[in-house]
């Protein structure tokens, strides 16, 4: 096999952007501070600072991406393209240095670019969408801080900064979901999101601690890096040094964090509720960027999961199982939603399942590619939903009540939605096809046939529920608000922006970001278009770390060489992490992964499944929603009597019943109820326990600490002041003579002291 250490290595190019891309999170952080401190006094209420700081980040991220591509180009064919790392010492404790710094590699530049790009577009969109909102400035402040947090996490050199960015995102998510907190449901949704994600975050803390204590000794002595360093952890995980139980615990703990953040089963419940936030927030945080943080964590520390969970091993692992469950249950739930954003939310959960499935099955690059493409088309779908509610349906998101027939009124939104939907369904040649099909293909290619079938089933469901949502929104007859009916909203938080009028296309600040994203939803798949041959696999070339042995130039001092012993190294077995069977001097930072060979026959199968999903769903939708008696629309949803009468009508409605009630409620109902039970009794039980404890603690603190100690100290100082005051009061007699006497007495005493001291 290849031995990079013996080759002549070409020098890698760097560049200003690669060295200084750490500014990408710093600029929005400063922007956040300016918005919070001075935002309300600025002419555009702080929004200009947000947009400008993110544009600066976008420039930095794009420059870094271009220079990274040059760097990859300057490397030899099988040379390891070392990340651009810069660190600064932050603080010191217990003999350990805590550093912050940047770790720029292919994965970083991909995700950094996506975050900066979509953040910028969403901020521009929000200029119009939230115009006149009562907390306009705060909204932009939180949105800017969120982007800073996400970018800090993406460029993090070590797990400390990673954790910091991760938690900043959690906080901003909470603030933005509860943006319209006057409505109790919104603040409940914000709390639910925050606490559910926090439950998972415990796993992140535990995982980081376990990794530090397990890896620190090895990384310090062999690489001169701390046990928090991502480079160190990656090399350690593949070195053969880790105890298999310890690294399993670490991987599972980290994966629990990913379950919380990326909305995997069973902690996915917060994500649909998070749609209570303004639509730009849903688009940015809860579909395209923040929720992929969990996926990013797995991709970032892939060697840990690779070794810990035995990825590519003969049996299925926890990531794949969870991901497969998530794909199916989320897709099934998407069928029974009437809220367009909730359909998209479940779709996001399901697509995150695909990414996790890819990572769990050893399809690292397809999963990262799916992060990339999914971000564009899902952000676009959400922004379309926002455009509809902004300009057509009077801030309602109810597809059945307030939408329908909108394709004539909103041509740009309709075109963008259609393109993104086709991308999401995975129709050739839209971007989703290239990424999703690659995941499914590679899962099968690595020998996990069952999970490949689950992925194909998920693709069918995706196509079906997106067709249903598209039909309800854009086809059929206009209903409710989109038909021009006016109804008063009890919720005054929404009533502030935009006057209600008949459906129309949104303004340029909304349609331009949508159009840009729609274009990317079509073409971003070409960044790794496996069907067109090896030369089109740009992302594979640029982003996938190469599994080669690196004789460390920055290892612990000169002459520091050591031997990696390969875990699964047997005779002639190239399944060892670096693809080598014999121990070699050096370390390797990435496991060797396989890539399935693209075959049109397999792609045709999945395309056929997708088209079947679209066709079946279209027929059912037009039968159910298009041709039925208009007076029955609302009644059939909940009213059993109406449904019984409605069953008597025509035979085709039995199909509807089968579709709505029979299949979905029988399949999804028990799961939903079980999830609800779990949520109510297990998760909420934990929450209530914590709350009760906090209340007791609060009462104790109030009675014994606040009342007795704190207030006691305050009262005592007041009493002391009063006593002193009463004592010295007679001096202030108000009589000039007394004052004169005091003055001269003091002068005399001072003179005496002076005389005594200096004679």
């Amino acid at each position, binding site marked *: 096999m290849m031995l990079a250490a013996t080759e002549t290595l070409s020098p890698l190019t760097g560049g200003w952007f690669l060295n200084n891309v750490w500014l990408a999170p710093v600029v929005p952080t400063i922007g956040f501070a300016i918005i919070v401190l001075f935002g309300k006094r600025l002419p555009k209420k702080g929004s200009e600072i947000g947009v400008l700081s993110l544009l600066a980040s976008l420039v930095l991220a794009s420059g870094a991406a271009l220079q990274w591509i040059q760097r990859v180009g300057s490397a030899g064919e099988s040379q390891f393209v070392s990340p651009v790392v810069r660190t600064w010492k932050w603080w010191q404790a217990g003999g350990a240095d805590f550093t912050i710094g940047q770790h720029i590699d292919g994965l970083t530049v991909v995700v950094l670019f996506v975050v900066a790009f979509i953040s910028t577009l969403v901020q521009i969109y929000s200029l119009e969408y939230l115009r006149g909102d009562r907390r306009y400035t705060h909204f932009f402040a939180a949105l800017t801080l969120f982007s800073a947090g996400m970018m800090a996490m993406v460029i993090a050199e070590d797990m400390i900064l990673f954790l910091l960015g991760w938690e900043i995102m959690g906080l901003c998510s909470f603030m933005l979901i509860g943006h319209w907190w006057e409505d109790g449901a919104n603040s409940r949704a914000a709390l639910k999101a925050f606490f559910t994600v926090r439950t998972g975050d415990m796993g992140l803390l535990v995982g980081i601690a376990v990794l530090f204590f397990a890896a620190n000794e090895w990384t310090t002595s062999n690489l001169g890096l701390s046990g928090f360093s991502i480079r160190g952890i990656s090399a350690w995980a593949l070195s053969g040094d880790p105890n298999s139980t310890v690294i399993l615990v670490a991987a599972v703990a980290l994966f629990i964090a990913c379950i919380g953040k990326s909305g995997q089963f069973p902690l996915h419940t917060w994500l649909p509720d998070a749609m209570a936030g303004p639509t730009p927030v849903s688009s940015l945080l809860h579909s395209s960027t923040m929720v992929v943080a969990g996926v990013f964590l797995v991709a970032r520390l892939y060697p840990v999961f690779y070794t810990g969970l035995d990825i590519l091993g003969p049996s299925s692992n926890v990531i794949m199982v969870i991901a497969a469950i998530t794909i199916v249950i989320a897709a099934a739930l998407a069928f029974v939603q009437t809220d367009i954003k909730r359909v998209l939310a479940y779709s996001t959960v399901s697509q995150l399942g695909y990414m996790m499935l890819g990572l769990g099955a050893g399809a690292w690059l397809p999963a990262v590619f799916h992060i990339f493409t999914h971000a564009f088309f899902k952000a676009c779908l959400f922004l379309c939903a926002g455009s509809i509610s902004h300009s057509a349906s009077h801030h309602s998101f109810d597809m059945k009540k307030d939408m329908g027939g909108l394709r004539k009124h909103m041509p740009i939104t309709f075109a963008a939605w259609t393109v993104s939907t086709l991308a999401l369904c995975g129709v050739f040649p839209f971007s989703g096809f290239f990424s999703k099909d690659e995941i499914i293909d590679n899962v099968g290619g690595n020998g996990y046939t069952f999970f490949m079938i689950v992925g194909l089933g998920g693709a069918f469901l995706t196509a079906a529920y997106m067709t249903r949502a598209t039909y309800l929104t854009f086809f059929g007859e206009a209903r409710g608000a989109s038909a021009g009916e006016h109804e008063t909203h009890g919720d005054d938080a929404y009533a502030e922006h935009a006057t209600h009028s008949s459906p129309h296309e949104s303004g340029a600040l909304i349609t331009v970001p949508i159009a840009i994203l729609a274009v990317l939803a079509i073409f971003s798949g070409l960044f790794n278009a496996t069907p067109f041959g090896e030369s089109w696999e740009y992302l594979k070339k640029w982003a996938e770390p190469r599994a080669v042995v690196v004789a460390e130039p920055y290892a612990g001092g000169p002459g520091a060489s050591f031997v990696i012993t390969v875990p699964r190294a047997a005779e002639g077995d190239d399944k060892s992490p670096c693809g080598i069977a014999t121990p070699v001097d050096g370390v390797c930072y990435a496991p060797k992964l396989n890539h399935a060979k693209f075959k049109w026959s397999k792609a045709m199968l999945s395309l056929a499944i997708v088209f079947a999903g679209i066709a079946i769903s279209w027929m059912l939708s037009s039968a159910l929603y298009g041709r039925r008696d208009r007076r029955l629309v609302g009644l059939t949803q909940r009213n059993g009597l109406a449904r019984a009468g409605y069953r008597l009508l025509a035979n085709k409605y039995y199909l509807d019943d089968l579709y709505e009630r029979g299949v979905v409620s029988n399949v999804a109902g028990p799961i939903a109820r079980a999830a609800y039970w779990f949520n109510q009794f297990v998760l909420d039980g934990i929450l209530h326990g914590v709350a009760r404890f906090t209340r007791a603690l609060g009462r104790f603190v109030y009675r014994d600490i606040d009342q007795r100690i704190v207030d006691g100290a305050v009262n005592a100082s007041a009493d002391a002041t009063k006593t002193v005051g009463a004592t010295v*009061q007679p001096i*202030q*007699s*108000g*009589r*000039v*003579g007394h004052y*004169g006497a005091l003055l*001269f007495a003091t002068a005399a005493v001072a003179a005496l002291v002076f005389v005594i001291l200096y004679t």
Partner: protein
Amino acid sequence: MLTSQFLLLGAVLFCIGVYGVIARKNAVLVLMSIELILNSVNINLLAFALRNGSADGHTFALYIVAIAAAEVGVGLAMVLLIYRNRRSIGLDELSEMRG
């Protein structure tokens, strides 16, 4: 020694001035006592200036005379206003403090 006699005169005048400031109730008399104190200081300055053969003390004395004039001007204006408001210039009656 000439200097000590000057100083003695200054000290006597200073004490009389201090007594006047403390003991007198009439505001005009208090002002006059302050003048006494200032002039006792002048005498001291002049005495030391003579002894050291320097002009510094004279200069200071001239300053003090000028400042004393200004001070008396302000003081008398205040006394006049107090008198207009209260028909009395007794300092003991000026206090408005309670408690």
